[in-house]
């Protein structure tokens, strides 16, 4: 089963062609920019409308997938079975572009549409395979899904394909957002995660400053990172200038420790409360090695298995994960109505 998937939920214009769990081709516009050295910085949502990129991105994934799928009369999309698109959560005007394109192609090629929750995609990102079916491995439900990105922080019970239950989420800022803001304060650009992680490592992952760990002791699976951000900001501002530079590694390290301590505590609590031991972790922050090693230790301790996105690009926003989630929807005959499908900017799991 071949699926063309489109994701335009935030600043990436992404498309992929998948077959079951396998990626046949994928592309996202910011990568193209970097490859072509058109600037090197990540373009913001506003700088170039998704509209300007979407046709190009779809054409590129088709061109690249031609290795695996023989185009019919020069048109690869004729051989595609379904068209999948992210309908939320995300930025309204960005989501609209992807949905409009998906509808247009669905009509033109007479294909059924599948709408996918972007966060559902992040869960499935742990099960995406390359074109040769690597990594292998079957599903072993249920899982606790920890989703940490620039826009979201939540813990979801992934009971079975397409069956999710939200256990807790952030009340204010996402983990990735707090990290980005701390990084910017320390003088590093977007995305801030890799910079913070590198600095922290150089400081030996020490926790000199003991920043607050919001909600760490509460008996809920909710997060809050706004208070930590605030504490960090005003503490940083109060430092003498030379200290700000001299202690940049220690500051980054203590900040990262605070974020990860909360995340880990909530996952320990989630395992306790649900008895579920298998864990999947998705979203940009899942690229953090310190987080990975701490969560691996947790999984080992409780005799569970843990899965991260197997390829680096799958931690960020991408369409391959949307295509894989859509595959399970297609198998369950869950399709979107062409006339009713609309973006839901604050879409969330029940």
């Amino acid at each position, binding site marked *: 089963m071949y699926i063309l998937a489109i994701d335009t939920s935030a600043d990436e214009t992404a498309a992929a062609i998948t077959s079951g769990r396998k990626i046949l081709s994928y592309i996202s516009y910011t990568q193209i920019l970097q490859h072509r050295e058109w600037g090197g910085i990540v373009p*913001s949502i506003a700088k170039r409308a998704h509209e300007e990129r979407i046709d190009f991105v779809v054409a590129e994934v088709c061109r690249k997938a031609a290795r695996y799928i023989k185009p019919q009369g020069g048109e690869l999309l004729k051989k595609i079975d379904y068209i999948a698109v992210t309908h939320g959560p995300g930025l309204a005007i960005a989501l609209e572009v992807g949905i409009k394109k998906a509808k247009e192609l669905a009509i033109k090629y007479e294909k059924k549409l599948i709408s996918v929750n972007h966060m559902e995609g992040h869960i499935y990102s742990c099960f995406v395979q390359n074109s040769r079916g690597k990594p292998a491995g079957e599903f072993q439900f249920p899982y606790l899904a920890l989703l940490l990105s620039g826009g979201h922080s939540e813990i979801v019970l992934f009971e079975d394909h397409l069956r999710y239950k939200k256990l807790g989420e952030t009340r204010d800022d996402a983990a990735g957002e707090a990290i980005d803001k701390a990084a910017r304060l320390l003088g590093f650009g977007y995305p801030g995660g890799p910079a913070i992680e590198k600095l922290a490592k150089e400081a030996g992952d020490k926790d000199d400053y003991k920043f607050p760990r919001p909600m760490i002791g509460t008996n809920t699976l909710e997060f809050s990172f706004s208070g930590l951000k605030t504490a960090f900001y005003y503490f940083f501002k109060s430092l003498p200038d030379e200290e700000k530079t001299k202690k940049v590694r220690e500051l980054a390290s203590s900040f990262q420790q605070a974020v990860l301590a909360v995340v880990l505590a909530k996952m320990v609590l989630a395992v306790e409360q649900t008895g579920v031991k298998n864990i999947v972790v998705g979203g940009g922050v899942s690229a953090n090695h310190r987080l990975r090693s701490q969560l691996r230790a947790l999984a080992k301790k409780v005799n569970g298995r843990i899965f991260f996105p197997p390829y680096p690009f799958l931690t960020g926003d991408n369409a391959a994960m949307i295509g894989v989630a859509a595959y399970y929807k297609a198998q369950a005959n869950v399709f979107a109505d062409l006339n009713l499908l609309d973006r839901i900017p604050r879409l969330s799991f029940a």
Partner: protein
Amino acid sequence: MQIIPIDKIQISDIVKALKGNGLVVAPSDTVYGLLVTAAQQKGVEKLIRFKNRPPGKAISVFVADFKMMEEYAVLSDRQRKIITELLPGPFTVILKSKHKVSVLLESEKQTLGLRIPDDAFIVALVKQHGVPVTATSANLAGQPPHYSVASLLGTLPQVKKDLIDLVIDAGKLPRHKPSTVIDLTAPEIKLLRKGDILVSASKVFRSASPAETKKIARYIFRKISHDQQTPLVFILKGEMGVGKTVFAKGIGELFAIRKIISPTYVMYYEYDLPGKKKFVHADLYNLEDPSEFRQLQFERYLVPGNILLFEWGERARAIAAGLKKSAKIIMVEMKYCRENEREITIGY
């Protein structure tokens, strides 16, 4: 004494208790309060016995709305104007009594303290009851107020507990201060007790917690006379961590939108309002130049009845200038004073 959780109780049962001279402990927008029917001598006596309150010290009352207030107090045009600015909210206003409530509630100067709370539960209760109820905090005279039922009951001797007929338990209340008391009968407005919100002519508010910032947001929203003929635009300025998203949450909660999170990552989120209107919560933190602002196409949200709120509004100075004709603009400037203190200045 009966203790019933707030989500299990029928308002009609509380009204029944109040009608039968009952003493009811109920949560309000400030602290747990002691409710009796203000016009019933027996109930009021019970209340005074409970509180150990020296006779002659006034006890204020909850009314449901301005109409009920006019039935029980004498209002001049000037007082009416001030009151519509303040209420509903955490204020007790002192006015000349029309002597329709128990005389034990009035002060020696024959004035009465009245509140219209920012609290749907109390307002619904008083409305259904049809007459004012007392609005005094559920503590013994001279002791601090209580924020949970457990803390209240823990301090009470059995003889006091026996006086209580019904307790409505809403768990732990946020730590709001008791209301600010303002005497409107004096030639110059006198502040008798400082509560959460301080009023001043320049519309400067002080907040001591996120809960208070939300409350100030709701208060401001209610005070803006807005005819819905234009969109309403809040422009929030202030540095990181000052509570801009908290302010947005306060506005959202007026419409029962409880899932507001920071929109930094995606620039803005939209939420549904009644009547197919939208609440747009935007964050311009990641905006780099004005042309990006144009590309976000906010103008398509500029329709009457919609509410737009921009965090980091200083990054798009042009918005305010460009919108003046087509929208009602509220400038909100937030400043960090101390760890738990923010100054919020409103301009419109």
